[in-house]
C-alpha cells in the first residue's frame, strides 16, 4: 500500500503480550490524533517467510494495494535467531479528508528462530484479530510450520506453480484443502480464461456444443504445468468427463483422453509454450465434433479470440481486459480468502488424475 501516514513501534527481545499492547496503544494514539482514523477489520494474514527473502515478500505485498490484509502478521524466520524482535506499523493511505474516514492497516513483523517454532501458535495467536478470518501464506515452503499455523487459519494461500513437481503441487493443495479453504494463485491466473471459455459457450445455441467437445489443447508457461492441468481439470469436472489414465508423453507435450458422460471421447493435450515469460496459460483451444474451433490466446489489451466456424469461416477479435500482473494476482488471492469458489476442489481432483 502507498502509506503516507505511519505509526511505528519496535522492540528487541520482546513478547507477544508486549507486541499486542503496542498495537492497542498505537491504534488508540492514532484515533486520538484524529477520530477519523479507523482500523480496518477485514482479514488477518499470516505470512511465514525466510528472513533472507523477506524484502522480496514485503515488495510483493506492497504491490497488492487496497487488497492489503487489515492485519498482516509477518513471521520472519532465521534459523539461528535466539531473540524475539518485533516491529509494528500502523499505516493509512493518507490523512483523513474532512468528514471522511481514513482506514488504518496494521503490519506486525516478528523475527523468530528455530527455538521459537515449538511455541509458534502462542506467538501468533495473540497477534491476530479475534473473529476475523485468517489467511496463511508460507511462500518459502515450511510445510511443517503450515501444519501448525493451520490451527489459526481458515484459508491458505499458495501458488501451485512454485512447487518443483506438478503432481506434488497438486497433492499438496489437495491435502491442504481437507483442512482449510485453499486459494491457489495458479487457479486465479486462469480466471479470465475460464470466464471467457464459459462466455463463449453461454449463448443457448452454443451450449449444446459443450456435449460435443472433442479436443482441448492447453499451452502453458514451462513452469506452469499445474495451471494447464487445472484448466483441463476444470473443464472435466464441470462437464462430467472421466479420465481413466494419466496423460502420457508425446514429445514435449502431454496427451491423453477423457470420456464424457455421453461416452463421447475428448482428446486432451498440454503443450509447453517456451515463448511465454510469465506464469500461467498461453492459449486454450477447444474443438467440437461439429467443426467449431475456439482458440483464446494472449494479446495486446486482452485475450485474442480466434474462431473457426462450422462452415470453416475464421474470425479473430480481441476481448478487452487489462493484465493484472503478478501483484494483481496476489491481491486477488488475498481477496479470495473472503469468498468461496466451489469449483476449485473438483478441478483439483480432476487435475490430479491427469498427472503422474
Amino acid at each position, binding site marked *: 500500500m502507498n502509506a503516507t501516514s505511519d505509526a511505528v513501534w519496535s522492540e528487541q527481545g520482546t513478547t507477544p503480550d508486549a507486541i499486542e499492547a503496542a498495537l492497542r496503544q498505537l491504534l488508540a494514539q492514532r484515533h486520538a490524533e484524529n477520530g477519523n482514523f*479507523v*482500523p*480496518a*477489520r*477485514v*482479514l488477518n494474514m499470516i505470512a511465514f517467510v525466510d528472513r533472507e527473502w523477506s524484502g522480496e515478500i514485503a515488495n510483493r505485498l506492497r504491490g497488492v494495494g*487496497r*487488497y*492489503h490484509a*487489515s492485519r498482516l502478521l509477518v513471521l520472519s524466520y532465521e534459523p539461528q535467531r535466539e531473540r524475539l524482535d518485533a516491529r509494528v506499523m500502523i499505516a493509512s493511505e493518507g490523512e483523513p479528508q474532512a*468528514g*471522511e*474516514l481514513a*482506514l488504518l492497516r496494521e503490519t506486525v513483523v516478528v523475527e523468530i528462530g528455530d527455538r521459537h517454532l515449538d511455541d509458534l501458535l502462542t506467538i501468533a495467536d495473540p497477534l491476530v484479530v479475534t473473529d476475523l478470518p485468517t489467511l496463511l501464506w508460507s511462500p518459502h515452503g515450511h510445510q511443517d510450520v503450515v501444519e501448525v499455523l493451520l490451527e489459526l487459519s481458515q484459508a491458505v494461500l499458495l501458488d501451485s506453480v512454485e512447487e518443483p513437481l506438478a503432481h506434488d503441487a497438486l497433492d499438496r493443495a489437495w491435502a491442504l484443502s481437507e483442512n482449510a479453504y485453499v486459494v491457489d494463485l495458479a487457479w486465479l491466473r486462469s*480466471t*479470465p480464461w*475460464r*470466464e*471467457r*471459455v*464459459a*462466455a*463463449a*459457450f*453461454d*449463448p*443457448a*445455441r452454443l*451450449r*449444446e456444443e*459443450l*456435449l460435443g467437445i472433442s479436443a482441448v489443447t492447453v499451452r502453458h508457461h514451462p513452469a506452469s504445468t499445474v495451471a494447464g492441468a487445472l484448466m483441463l481439470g476444470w*473443464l472435466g469436472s*464441470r*462437464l*462430467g468427463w472421466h479420465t481413466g489414465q494419466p496423460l502420457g508423453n508425446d514429445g514435449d507435450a502431454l496427451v491423453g483422453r477423457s470420456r464424457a*458422460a455421453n461416452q463421447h471421447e475428448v482428446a486432451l493435450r498440454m503443450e509447453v509454450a517456451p515463448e511465454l515469460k510469465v506464469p500461467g496459460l498461453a492459449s486454450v483451444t477447444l474443438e467440437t465434433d461439429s467443426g467449431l474451433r475456439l482458440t483464446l490466446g494472449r494479446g*495486446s*489489451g*486482452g*485475450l485474442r*479470440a480466434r*474462431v473457426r*466456424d462450422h462452415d470453416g469461416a475464421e*474470425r479473430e*477479435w*480481441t*476481448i*478487452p*481486459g*487489462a*493484465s493484472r500482473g503478478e501483484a494483481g494476482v496476489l491481491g486477488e488471492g*488475498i*481477496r479470495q480468502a*473472503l*469468498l468461496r*469458489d*466451489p*469449483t*476449485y476442489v473438483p478441478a483439483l481432483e480432476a487435475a490430479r488424475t491427469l498427472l503422474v
Partner: protein
Amino acid sequence: MATTTDTETENPLTAGLERQPVAPTTLVIFGATGDLARRKLLPALYNLAHEGALPERFHLVGVSRKEKEHDDYRAECEEAIRRFSRRTPDDSVLERLLETVKYVPGTFDDPQVYAELGSVLDGFEQEAGEPLNRAFYLSTAPGFFPVIVEALGASKLNEHARAEVRLIIEKPFGTTLQEAQELNRRVLAIFDEAQVFRIDHYLGKETVQNMMAFRFANGMFEPLWNRNYIESVQITASEELGIGSRADYYDSAGALRDLIQNHMLQLLCHVAMEPPVSFTAEEVRNEKVKVLHSIPQPSPADVGQMAVRAQYSSGHAGGEDVPGYLQEDGVPEGSITETYAALRLEVDNWRWAGVPFYLRTGKRLARKVTEIAVTLKPVPHLAFSQDGSLGVQPNQLVLTLQPNEGVSLRLGAKIPGTRMIIRPVNMEFLYGTAFLSQSPEAYERLITDAMRGDATLFTRNDEVEAQWRICDPIVGTWSNTPGPLPSYEAGSQGPQEADGLLREGDRWRAI
C-alpha cells in the same frame, strides 16, 4: 459436480465465476457527446473493459447531432475516458475498446440516421458471423425520448429475430404523472416492458443494494421492523453545494423532482418493502410497487400539511460567502423552484400504519449526507434516574449511504461511576473497514445488468407512475402557489418551516 449440459437450463461452466457472461452486444448511445456520456457512460465502459467484464463481442456506436467522423468521435471518447475514469486507463485496453467504435451523426427525428444506424449494426453482425444483442441508451434531453423510441420503431430497430433488443432510458422519466404516463404509453407501444430499463442510478449504488442485504440477511431486525417498535423513519439526502452551473436544468426541476420523486422514494421502498420471495427483478419490483401503492396520494388540501419547500438564501458554505439561489447565475428572477423539499408520508399497510416517513433533501445545507434513520419507540418504563444525565433516548438505527457508508446503532449506556446515569452511545459499523474491494461505479453495474437483461435495479413502468402519483399533487400545488418561498440560510440545517411536518416528540436529525 454439475454434469448437466441441458441447453434449456444452465451453462455448467459459469458455476463459481464471480462475473457471469454477458451476451455479445452492441451498445448505441443517443446523446453520445453529452455530459452524461462523457462523464459517466464512457468511463464506465472503459472500466468494464479493463476488468474484462464486457461481453465477448462488444461494439459501441455513438449517435448525436454534431457532424463528425468515426475517428474524431473515438478521440473524444478517449479524452473523456482519460479525464473521468476512476482508474488510469491502460493504453492497450483503451485502444482495443475504441478500435471498433462508430459514430452516426444526425438529428434524432431523421429516418436517415436510423437507416445508417441499422447498417452499422448489421455490419457488426456480419463481421461477427452471429447476431448481436442491441442496447439503445437514451442519454439525451428527455424531450427526445419518445422521438427516438418511435424512430427506432419506424425503422424496425426495436426488434430482432435472433437477438435481444433493449432500451435504456435515463431520468427524468417525465416531469409530471401525465408526462410519465404518456411516455410509458409511447415507449410501450414500440417496446415490451421486458425490453425497457429505466435508470435510477441510485439503485446501482452498492450502498442501496446493501440495504437489502442488511434487512434480509440479518434475522435480528425483522422482529422489530414494524409499527410496534418503530416510531419514525427519516430519510435525508443533503448537499452542501449549490446548483453550480446547472441552473437551466435545476430551475425546471427542483428538489422534489430531482431527488424525492425517484431516488428517495426508492430508498423508502427499500426500507418499507416486504421480503421478496426471490431476488428476481419482478419479485423485488412487485414488493416496491406495493409500498408505493400503500402511500396515500395527497390531495391539494393536504399538501400544506405534509410538504414543505424552500430556497436557500445567501450564507456561508465551506468557509466562503455564497450567493442565494435567486442570485445564482442563470436562475430566472422570481423563480419559485424549490432547492429544499421535505415530506411526511404515511405507508398505510399492516406493517407501517401510523409510522411517519420523513423525507428531506436540499442544496446548500450544512453538509453532504445521505442516510436513513430509523427511530425505535422509547422503552415503556424508566427505572433510572434522569438526574444528571443526558437522558435515556430511543434507540436509533442509522444507515448511512454516503459519505461514510455504514450502520450505526444508538444505545443507552451507563456512564462509568457510582450512579446509574445513562447516556447515548453509538455502536458503529463502517463498510469501508470491513471489505477489501472497491465499489464499482453505479453505471458500471447498471450497464452490465441492462446488457444481461436483469431489470432488478431498474424502475418498472408501474413503479414510475406510482412514484409520480405521490409527487404529482405536490408539484401541481406548488406550481400554482405564488412565491416567494420560505428561505433558509446557505450552510444551515434547512428552513424552520420543516419542523412543522414533525409529529410531536419527533425532530430532524442534525445534518
